[in-house]
């Protein structure tokens, strides 16, 4: 699948922002109002930036309000509705805390729950795609939630939860790659089932046209796959292993925490790029490609 920068930014940044909201909602601690205010603004900025960048992916962004209508059937619609609800509830929670000093814990729990729900819906947009076997797995929402919680915990400075989240993240990412590499073959979709020509070996003799088309650009993206191995190692190391080791070995204070955030975000972007670039759509079979 084409790794569109707008979609990578959308899933990565909004995941970080909502993850931070989870920890600010569940374990705000006894932060001074201005500290809480700064954290809240950071969470809101990350989530809103992510959501806004998703608009750049649309052919008609001015009609985005229509996308909130089909929450009964569409994960994308659910994601939109929940994202707006989360932003509103969390903004209210943060504003009351900072401006009036009212620390309404239940409102924080609600914001955390909504934030987790939003990240789950974002992941389900991809996990529901049966024609993309690598994505069509419960590991996809698991991985998105783990990324969100690990990044959120680190940003919030909650080191103990972060430690656990990084461990889970590393394990889930490794499992997702391991299972993902076999997913296409296990899906049962082949050139034989795609064409219904089951009586022998099938190969593409002539493509429908000499140039590219929308389908090939969007769903038969093959650039950079040969660098997969090195990118996987770099992504996993930066996103999870390095922060995990650092937390175990050192006392994580401001400067180190800042560096770990940079490392994690770099790893997040690399693995998210791979999430798209490595995913193969079954439509490629009609073009003799994967």
């Amino acid at each position: 699948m084409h790794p569109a920068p707008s979609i990578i930014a959308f899933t990565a940044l909004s995941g970080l922002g909502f993850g931070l909201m989870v920890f600010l909602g569940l374990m705000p601690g006894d932060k001074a109002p201005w500290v809480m205010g700064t954290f809240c603004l950071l969470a809101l900025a990350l989530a809103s930036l992510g959501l806004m960048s998703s608009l750049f992916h649309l052919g008609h962004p001015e009609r985005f309000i229509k996308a909130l209508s089909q929450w009964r059937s569409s994960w994308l619609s659910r994601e939109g509705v929940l994202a707006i609800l989360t932003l509103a509830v969390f903004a209210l929670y943060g504003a009351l805390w900072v401006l009036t000093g009212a620390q309404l814990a239940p409102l924080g729990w609600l914001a955390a729950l909504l934030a987790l729900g939003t990240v789950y819906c974002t992941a389900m947009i991809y996990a529901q795609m049966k024609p993309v076997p690598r994505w069509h797995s419960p590991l996809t929402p698991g991985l998105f939630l783990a990324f969100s919680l690990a990044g959120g915990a680190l940003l919030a400075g909650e080191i103990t939860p972060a430690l656990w989240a990084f461990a889970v993240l590393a394990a889930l990412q490794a499992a997702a790659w391991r299972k993902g590499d076999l997913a296409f073959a296990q899906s049962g979709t082949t050139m034989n089932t795609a064409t219904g020509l089951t009586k022998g070996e099938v190969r593409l003799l002539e493509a429908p046209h000499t140039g590219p088309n929308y389908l090939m650009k969007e769903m038969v993206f093959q650039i950079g796959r040969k660098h997969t191995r090195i990118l996987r190692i770099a992504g996993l190391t930066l996103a999870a292993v390095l922060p995990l080791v650092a937390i175990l070995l050192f006392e994580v204070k401001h400067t180190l925490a800042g560096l770990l955030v940079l490392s994690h975000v770099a790893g997040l972007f690399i693995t998210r790029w791979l999430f798209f670039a490595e995913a193969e759509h079954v439509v490629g079979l009609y073009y003799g490609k994967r």
Partner: protein
Amino acid sequence: MTTLPQKTEKSLGLVIDLDTCVGCHACVISCKEWNTGNYGAPLSDQDAYGDVPMGTFLNRIHTFEVVPENRPAQTVHFPKSCLHCEDAPCVTVCPTGASYKRVEDGIVLVNESDCIGCGLCAWACPYGAREMDAAEGVMKKCTLCVDRIYNENIPQEDRVPSCVRTCPAGARHFGDLSDPTSSIFHLVEERGGIDLMPEQGTKPVNKYLPPRPKDTELDVLGPLLRQESPGGFLGWLDQQLEKL
């Protein structure tokens, strides 16, 4: 609403005969012509006369080679367009309700004024039946020529999808696949019509008729060319001349 109807009154669709298709691409061109000039946004082209021409098409012809064991290879021209699936995954993913399946005839359509161009429906379709138009930013797909089949302003014989009307080989058939009395239903029964990617669970309405197996004897004409030599004087003369 982007939930699918429980049941449609009809299941209009195509039956494509892979044994008959000659791969002339006439249906591709007639589809592009009709759907550019009629319902919805035109099917645009980008860099049409340049180095990398690209454009929106609702119907494309792939050509495959199938090599059965111990049999000669076979070339199969393979037209591909929307299959108007019963369980259309493109419809349920739509966040705006722009994509829908009609209760009255089962046609899957896009309401272009509601489409935000997110492209999710094209991802959800395993067949690659939907293409985003680069000029309009909305999703385009086969409408089964909904603006022809019910059009009382055109002659009766033209009230079929443009691709079906155009096919010079008669490889494309149109009708109600849920009607056991229809000729198209019988055709599918008779020829063992199949679904594409049945494992994807989309329950396509369109069916494909598999190519008939080729003869195992490669030298079909040879035996016909072997002639008895004429008898009598001319036969004798022929034999003598052969010997020289």
